[in-house]
């Protein structure tokens, strides 16, 4: 066969797979960041679509529990931000009928739920803990939250902050948690009140809550998310 013709054809065949070179955009630092951000956003978006309120996290028997002293304490800065319990209240704002400061006793007066669920860290470890508290949905009802709003955000005594999509906030296993292993929360585990969200990764489960807001706009997303981690991270 004619060599020249064959070469020409080879070139044409090579050109046909040239679109693969588009992946080279990931090698260009200027393009890499927006591309990876888009990939992460798409993963978050599809995670939201995959989320089903009826899909419950597995609950475990008492014999499966990780012993309390083996439950890792994993704060990002201090283990104890020094909350003064006597003065503590949860400040509620945003799209709610009854904004204001809510005392621990008001939260504890709401229906109580205890569950043995798995706490999964993005770093790859997981433990099974016993958590007690009131479903966040009950608290949102108490404050008259507009549940058609998109987000529930929280702020913490140690400058940590987080945000949840409304569907997850209303999930029956999402708790305003004030007990672990049938005891009041210890300071290292987020006393007096923390979030327990067994349908999400560990870093979403903020400790030492001080503020809660119902909103349609996220001014900032979350402590780890704003450094590049996934926002939705539903399991």
């Amino acid at each position, binding site marked *: 066969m*004619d060599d020249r*013709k064959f070469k020409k054809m080879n070139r044409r065949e090579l050109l046909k797979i040239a679109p*693969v070179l588009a992946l080279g955009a990931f090698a260009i630092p200027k393009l890499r960041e927006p591309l990876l951000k888009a990939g992460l956003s*798409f*993963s978050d978006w599809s995670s939201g679509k*995959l989320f089903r309120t009826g899909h419950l996290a*597995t609950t475990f028997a008492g014999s499966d529990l990780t012993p309390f002293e083996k439950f890792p304490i994993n704060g990002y800065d201090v283990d104890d931000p020094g909350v003064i319990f006597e003065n503590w209240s949860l400040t509620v704002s945003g799209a709610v009928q009854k904004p204001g400061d809510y005392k621990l006793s008001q939260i504890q007066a709401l229906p109580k739920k205890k569950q043995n669920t798995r706490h999964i860290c993005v770093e790859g470890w997981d433990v099974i803990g016993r958590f007690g508290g009131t479903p966040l949905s009950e608290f949102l009802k108490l404050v008259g939250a507009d549940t058609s709003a998109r987000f529930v955000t929280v702020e913490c005594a140690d400058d940590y902050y987080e945000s949840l999509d409304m569907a997850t906030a209303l999930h029956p296993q999402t708790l305003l948690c004030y007990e672990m292993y049938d005891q009041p929360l210890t300071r290292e585990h987020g006393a007096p009140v923390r979030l327990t969200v067994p349908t999400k990764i560990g870093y979403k489960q903020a400790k030492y809550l001080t503020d809660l807001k119902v909103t349609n706009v996220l001014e900032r997303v979350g402590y780890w998310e704003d450094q590049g981690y*996934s926002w939705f991270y539903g*399991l």
Partner: protein
Amino acid sequence: MQVIEVESAKTGDSVQAVYEHPWAVRFSHWLNTVALFVLVGSGLQIFRAFPSFGAKIPQRDLLHWPKAFAIGGWLGGALQWHLTFMWIYIVTGMFYLGYQIFSGNYRQVLFVPSDVRGVWPMARHYFFFGPKPPAIQTYNPLQKLAYTSAIGLGVLTVATGLAVWKPIQFSWLAGMMGG
């Protein structure tokens, strides 16, 4: 197989040139090569993140993978690479399967029950100096077995990834794989 008519410069007769693999197959293989490289590299960086909590909860590393041979630099970065390239990997896989099905090309590469009896003669030829079985189809039974099981493994990589990423939404999948 793609057959193209070309004109021979010497005789002016038309001759047939053959591309062993169609464009779609070469295209998706190259995409896959890149995607798998990134997924493995970032996966190893994610694996590296497993922490130690001191003597109380000791670290149990299966292997200590050097950072220089991982992609992403840190856990968050590796997750971004992983969660981006998994879509490229999945879409490429679906494109490839779609091509095979709609072009009918799959008949050449799909391992079917009638290929079973051809496996041993071919293996004997390759590994034990047995006689070469006559080539009666484009790909011999061992080649078809390799191509077909690669698809099975591809599906498995996506399934295991989904089970780890979404163990609650796909609890049936995670359960199938041991929880």
